[in-house]
């Protein structure tokens, strides 16, 4: 899995809405494996917009995003979906677990969609992920039977389902108390440090951002500072 190219490169990424509002402007950023990057900034600074652009959920108006050296600007939507499925993982402020499915089934959805593993292997992987996040006893429970912190950890497990190279999180602790928020950030730190993934977290919580290895600060859609530990 060693690629000479950096994991993620943004070159002059700009996003302007049709109404003329500029969300982010001329973002240049290079992220390598093993980095735990916090994107910080005041409300409306374009943090989330940048995350969606880097996560291939949205397309920039100009500039380009390269994932593992591959230019994504010209790729058709199904190819972007395939990259999200196999290479990226998302965690949002809201857990977005499907309410009709158990914890285990929720984690299984991306694995089954990718269809790279047979059913028993897929289930074993999902259980392993849940176990690693301390959720083994909750595997058969429904999302509405879990606490907020547990739900968010299930969402993390789902994001990790297909062993992504890049984990993107948008205010993942926004709905959590301090203790659970700290626990989630610990997980992120561990994922970056131990597994060599890149973790990109949008947060407005400066306290938590300090746990990251790198902090990118955004004001009015532009990077104003980019500091590493």
């Amino acid at each position: 899995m060693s690629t000479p190219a950096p994991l993620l490169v943004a070159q002059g990424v700009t996003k302007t809405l049709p109404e003329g509002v500029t969300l982010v402007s001329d973002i240049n950023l290079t992220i390598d494996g093993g980095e735990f990057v916090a994107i910080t900034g005041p409300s409306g600074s374009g943090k989330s917009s940048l995350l969606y652009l880097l996560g291939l959920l949205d397309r920039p108006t100009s500039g380009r995003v390269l994932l593992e050296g591959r230019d994504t600007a010209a790729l058709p939507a199904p190819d972007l979906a395939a990259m999200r499925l196999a290479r990226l993982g998302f965690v949002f402020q809201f857990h977005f677990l499907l309410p009709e499915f158990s914890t285990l089934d929720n984690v299984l959805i991306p694995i089954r969609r990718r269809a790279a593993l047979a059913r028993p292997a897929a289930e074993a992987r999902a259980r392993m992920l849940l176990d690693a996040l301390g959720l083994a006893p909750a595997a058969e429970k429904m999302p509405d039977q879990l606490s907020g912190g547990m739900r968010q950890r299930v969402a993390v497990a789902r994001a990790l389902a297909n062993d992504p190279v890049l984990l993107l999180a948008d205010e993942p602790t926004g709905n959590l108390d301090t203790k659970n928020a700290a626990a989630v950030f610990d997980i992120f730190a561990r994922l970056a440090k131990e597994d060599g993934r890149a973790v990109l977290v949008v947060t407005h919580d400066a306290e938590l951002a300090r746990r990251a290895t790198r902090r990118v600060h955004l004001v009015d859609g532009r990077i104003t500072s980019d500091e590493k530990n």
Partner: protein
Amino acid sequence: MRLIIDLARGMLSRRRRQTLVSVLGVALGVAFFIAITSIMRGFQTYFIQQVIDVQPHIVIKDETRSPAPQAAHMAAPDGAVAINGVKPVDRLRGIRASGERLAVLEAIPGAAAAPILTGAALLRYGSRDVTITVTGVDPTRYARVSNIEKDMLSGRLEDLRATANGLIIGDSLALRLGVQLGDTVVAVSPRGVSLQMKIVGLFHTGLATLDQSAGYVLLKVNQVLQDRPNVVNQILLRLGDVTQAEPLAREIEARFGERTESWEEQNRNILTVFVIQNAIMYSVTGAILLVAAFGIYNIISTVVFEKTRDIAILKSLGFTEGDVQLLFLAQGLIAGFLGAALGCLIGQLMIEGLAQVRFHTETPAGNDRFLLARDWRIYAIASGFAMASAALAAVIPARRAARLDPVQIIRGAA
């Protein structure tokens, strides 16, 4: 694909009651379609069967489809010829040399042919006069193209040969005339020929027109009675394969020149009625399924509306627009499939119920119940139709779901 179906089932399970209503709508549509089609098809099949059974499959008549061309027309085919006031010609009508034609016709595999001469005659007995249609037949040949032998109450067709001027009539006619087997009646033809005839047989077909006003005599006897020696006016043909009647009739007409009609042509008015009947039936059941389709559209639209968050997360996880569209299409198909399955079951029950119905009427054929077609193809058509309309109903909301922008939804939910 299993995943898509699992997800679709999960989403539908949240709207169990609404799903059930849509499924019931489809089920009723399918059930009515099956029951009505079964009744109609059953009756039509029975009717056609009767027609095919009672009538010859092909009739060759002693006339041409269009009048013979005039000499002046033939002399100047491209000329502007106008002919008025063509004089009637006295000519002995009929098919002559029927023997040659019979030899050709009987060479057709599975075919039986019988020449007949029909004509009107007045039967007189005591103070009663009844006009009937007399058919002159060759008993051996005629038995092969008709069911008359089966309908004989007393006597046999062959008895015509044993008695000079034997006559076979329907039981109702015998009652009207007040004659019995062995009695002698006087037959007078429009040509003025009068013959003494002996009743040698009685038949009952169940068809009032035949039983009340038809009689059978030997072909030769009728040729004398009608004063049309050595001619027949129809050749009747019965085939092994009735579906071949129409093309065969066209072939025979092209070869012999005489107007040749298949059973389909002779009953075209009734068959046309069936076509219209079927069109009405399909529109009514189609309308029921259309209403059911709206139910499916409704449930899928509701689910799409409620599940925007789930759609967004599935897309962010790497589901394509096609996957999402398939997911909601699958929900429509599941509802359609459940409706079709339930509908087949209800339809079957309805048919069993209809089969128990008895009408207290005396019909000629002795039928006092619904004639039901039990054909798996009716179920297949109904189910296919239901599934197709369900899929169609789901397409619009499914496309809407596929086009949802996950970024906007995730922003809105945060």
